[in-house]
């Protein structure tokens, strides 16, 4: 299987496939279904300093070839993640990418400082799609200066490489990508969800209690591919691509556009074995494409 291996800052991946943050919890549930050691990595649910109970329900709604979610970063809090979830995951031979969230720079710094010391956490993923309370609620990930400063602060404390997860809800994603690269990011993960809304057919009110939700699933793939393609041209650091991946071909597409690895989110809810199946199917797909190592696919759209 070494034709699938990928080396990225902090991450020695058996293969480039990993579940996306928030779509795989802390691994316990999917561990009932298959051996998590098979995965390239696992991106765990966003962790915040304090436990969070998240938004009122309904939290999800279906849309054409997609879904909306407004979970609200529900998680048991840093202490519990450090004492219960991460140690439990140590039984698997798989690097963990810890998704870090907060509303103040200090929150991110605190989570990053501590979670990056966990033995199986090999990289952080900064979820900069959260509103920054200090800057009047403007999302960290929509302003290049705020984004860069956040990355600098986190880099100063993290013991492992830091990947930054970009929000697609911006006019110019390249600008944000370059800013976080300058800030010291070791890699980029993209994309997070697009902000969307669904209305109840009868009442006309938003289905999701929170009003808006994040759009994910196949519907967003063309936007994600375009953004990965653009960012690949503009930065030197590696990209972990995601947004609407449901099958092996989608993985090839993201890597062609410039991703060095690929995360699978929503599709885990539809085909619970999707990550495992893609990993099984990749070697045959590479053969079909006449490629000996999956690395050769990375960025081929640009050649």
């Amino acid at each position: 299987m070494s034709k699938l291996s990928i080396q990225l800052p902090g991450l020695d991946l058996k293969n480039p496939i990993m579940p996306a943050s928030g779509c795989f919890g802390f691994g316990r549930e999917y561990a009932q279904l298959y051996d998590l050691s098979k995965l390239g990595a696992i991106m765990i649910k966003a962790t915040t300093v304090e436990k969070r109970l998240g938004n009122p329900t309904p939290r999800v709604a279906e849309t054409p070839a997609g879904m909306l979610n407004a979970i609200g970063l529900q998680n048991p809090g840093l202490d519990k993640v450090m004492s219960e979830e991460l140690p439990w995951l140590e039984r698997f031979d798989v690097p963990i990418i810890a998704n870090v969230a907060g509303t103040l720079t200090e929150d991110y710094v605190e989570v990053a400082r501590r979670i990056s010391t966990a033995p199986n956490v090999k990289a952080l993923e900064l979820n900069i799609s959260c509103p920054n309370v200090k800057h009047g609620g403007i999302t960290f990930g929509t302003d290049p200066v705020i984004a860069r400063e956040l990355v600098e602060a986190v880099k100063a404390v993290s013991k492992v490489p830091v990947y930054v997860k970009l929000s697609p809800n911006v006019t110019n994603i390249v600008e944000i990508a370059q800013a976080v690269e300058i800030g010291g990011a070791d890699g980029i993960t993209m994309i997070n969800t697009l902000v969307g809304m669904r209305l109840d057919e009868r009442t006309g009110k938003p289905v999701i209690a929170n009003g808006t939700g994040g759009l994910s699933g196949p519907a967003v793939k063309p936007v994600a591919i375009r953004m990965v393609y653009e960012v690949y041209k503009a930065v030197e650091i590696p990209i972990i691509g995601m947004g609407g991946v449901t099958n092996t071909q989608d993985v090839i597409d993201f890597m062609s556009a410039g991703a060095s690895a690929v995360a699978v989110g929503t599709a885990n809810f539809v085909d619970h074995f999707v990550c495992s199946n893609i990993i099984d199917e990749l070697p045959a797909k590479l053969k079909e494409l006449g490629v000996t190592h999956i690395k050769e696919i990375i960025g081929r759209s640009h050649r």
Partner: protein
Amino acid sequence: MIQQERMIVVRQSEIAHHIFELTLQGQIVQEMNPGQFVHIRVSDSFEPLLRRPISIANINKEAGEVTVIYRAEGRGTSILATKQVGDEVDVLGPIGNGFPVDAIPEKGTALLVGGGIGVPPLYELSKQLNARGIRTIHVFGFATENVTFYEDQFSTLGDTHFVTVDGTKGTKGFVTDLLEELKPEFDVFYSCGPLPMLRALENFYPDKPGYLSFEERMGCGIGACFACICKTTEQQEKDYVKVCSDGPVFPKGVVQL
């Protein structure tokens, strides 16, 4: 253990207005218990995208068959209703913690209260309670006569009472109206149906043990995504439960109503 299986349609028919009874055959039937549900992918395309949670209504382990009863109303269930004998359906299950059949003393009496499309899981429950020698009383509320189903099936298991909102079948009104009138004697109640019904029932029988089955919009269906959270009451240690993996059935008093 939860598994994902392509089950085979062995029967499908419309048993009431827009209400379908679908029987599927497969390995995973062997693991099923009353009150659990299956998470059904109605199409191999991504439109609609998400699986649909549907309760297990009847388990036949010898034949390896499970029956579900659902209302074909939205996009997904309407597609499910077009499946024909021999078609394959992608099913994830069985999921969740069902009704505790042994939560009732021997020779005791169980009150089963269902509302609309919440009635189906009570059928397998009633079968298993009866098999244990428990007496069952069935009190079911529906909107109107033409969406009622399984009267004969339940009647062979115990006293069966219907109530409809418009009075077209049985008493007119809500299940609590009928319970007021019937004043049934029982040891434990089991219920599945709309939230207002569950709420009314909890208030109606403050001193009786009871088990309630909940519904919530789902993503993963297995406990990973935090979509299907219910807040718990103050008496609980945990702040929340997940309907999919902790439920869908909870002892009364667990979930904030």
